[in-house]
């Protein structure tokens, strides 16, 4: 969920409506360059940036919003490379469990230790992003770092579905990370696909674009129904946040 989209009041309302069917929220910080996102999520980022909600200031918005489920923050490290410490402090202050930087391993692999150190310093857990073309030793490294979760991006960008044998990649990732908590996402649109991914080794799934598309079309009811159906189709295993 892109922070504040479509506006602060509706954003709060949508989170509340979705809450019964959500284990945790991943809240994206709006940016001018949502580089790993597909067209749908990009639209929401651009909308919020035009509304003036972006950067470190955007985080403060979370102070004004009551979020009744645990949440994590997603942001691009390239936006906050010079303010990493401050950003993590703010994220911890507003109650996030961890901050997921999807570009950390790809663009700043040398910053992993710094990210862990700074996260731990402010009491945040770590969480890591991997793609479907990712070194095995890095997945093992992630697992050894005992993160809150490892997020496997199944497709090249959010919301874009290419003919990729995603279940196979989930199985391989599972073999490499052992019993660490595996979250999978990107272009999951149906209860059937969600269930298949869980059966192949995912612990939880992230639904983004499919929900956002409905919100863009003012179909909040449809978004909630989809969340309900997907939630009902899977048996969410013990989430590390303690939520189901």
């Amino acid at each position: 969920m892109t922070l504040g989209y479509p506006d602060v009041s509706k954003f709060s309302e949508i989170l509340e409506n979705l809450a019964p069917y959500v284990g945790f929220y991943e809240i994206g910080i709006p940016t001018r360059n949502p580089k790993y996102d597909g067209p749908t999520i990009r639209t929401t980022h651009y909308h919020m940036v035009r509304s003036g909600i972006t950067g470190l200031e955007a985080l403060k918005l979370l102070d004004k919003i009551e979020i009744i489920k645990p949440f994590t923050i997603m942001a691009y490290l390239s936006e906050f490379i010079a303010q990493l410490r401050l950003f993590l402090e703010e994220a911890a202050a507003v109650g996030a469990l961890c901050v997921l930087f999807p570009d950390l391993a790809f663009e700043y692999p040398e910053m992993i230790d710094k990210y862990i150190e700074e996260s731990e310093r402010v009491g945040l857990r770590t969480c890591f992003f991997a793609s479907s073309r990712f070194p095995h030793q890095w997945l093992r490294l992630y697992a050894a770092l005992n993160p809150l979760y490892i997020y496997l991006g199944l497709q090249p960008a959010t919301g874009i579905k290419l003919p990729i044998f995603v279940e196979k990649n989930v199985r391989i990732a599972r073999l490499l990370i052992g019993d660490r908590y595996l979250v999978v996402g990107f272009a999951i649109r149906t209860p059937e696909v969600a269930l298949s991914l869980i059966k192949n080794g995912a612990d939880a799934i992230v639904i983004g674009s499919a929900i956002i598309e409905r919100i863009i079309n003012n179909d909040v009811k449809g978004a909630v129904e989809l969340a309900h159906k997907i939630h009902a189709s899977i048996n969410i295993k013990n989430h590390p946040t303690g939520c189901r």
Partner: protein
Amino acid sequence: MTYLPSYWYNIVADLPVPLPPLLDPPEYESSRIAQLTKILPSRIIDEEYTLNRLIRIPEEVRAVYRKIGRPTPLIRAEGFEKALGVHRVVTIYYKYEGALLAGSHKLNTAVPQVYYAKTDGASEVVTETGAGQWGLAVSMAAAMLGVKAAIFMTRSSYLSKVSRRIAMEALGAKVIPSPSRRTKTGKNALYRNAHHPGTLGLAITEAVEYVLASPYRRYVAGSVLESVITHQTVIGQEVLHQMPEEPDYMVACVGGGSNMAGFTYPAIGMKLRGEGFEKTKFIAAESAAAPRLSRGEYRYDGLDTGLVLPLAKMYTLGREYVPPPIHAAGLRYHGASSSLSLLRKLGYIKAVAYEQEEVLRAAILFARSEGIIPAPESAHAIKAVIDISHKAPKGSVIIFNLSGHGLLDTDAYESICNELVTGEISVFND
């Protein structure tokens, strides 16, 4: 020697750091990544995004591999060693991909890509070509597998590599000089320069535009994509079985990177996993006309000139770069594959660049000592081997990939042979 690999090797699984992903150009609203489903065979996309280290080669493809001449030989270059004056000092071997039916390594990926396109229901495969090696390989694979082929050939090569163009046409392919008037991109390029020599980046854009005009066409990529260069790892896997000793140097020429990658990745993979090749140096030989690994920038850039494909992080000279026409037209691409670029960035691969004349002299020396006329592209590796052999410690072993023969590149040798005959030059640079 009958070993033929059952798997392709995907080095992405063993890279020291994650491979930067393909990205959509931020300035466009529509997604280039989403569009890939209309452009590429579906299994190519799956192989591009896989966590598998090993990818099983379909039996249908292995059968064609046998038919086209796999495995190819690894040959001791004793004549060449003697010509260089390093016999019994340095040992040189070459893997001879010119032995394949199309005369170059390009068939190794043309066959599976055309097979995948046909499996998707495509009736025509489309691609670009520089010197024509890739176009010829696609034409041959298309003829073998029963689909049509359309080849956008850079205009400079269309005019100079007549034999290869005719060979493609004899195989049933439609060969179109690029820039052409068949696409918007081609028309724009011709509007700016009526005598545009063409570039591989531009020809790719035209080929993709042409594919997008019909659901029954699929684009097959000659290099750069990880899935494509993975197909070429049959070369390097065979070398692992054939080589009598672990080399000190492995050398190959580089355009988009599929030849270098296919030849070296199985060995580099062993090095990355700590299973061998500790001492081996991996040398990429490129053209000074397009020295992307030697002098390019490591950054995101378009895979093609017109940005119809996504951006890749790679060493690049800029997607608008127009290299001068050279005989080794297959090396005129502006960038190198992401994984090869990353390995270069991390220091696993070293790059050298050579001028055309010194390369052709090296080729002549090789031809006269080994009896094989090398493709001008492969001759860059030969030139690198000459330089290495004169500096390498006694007992060193060099293996290089002779990625293709030059029997259809006689235009490249015409002027240098005339000068040799008249005594204007000697084979060696003095």
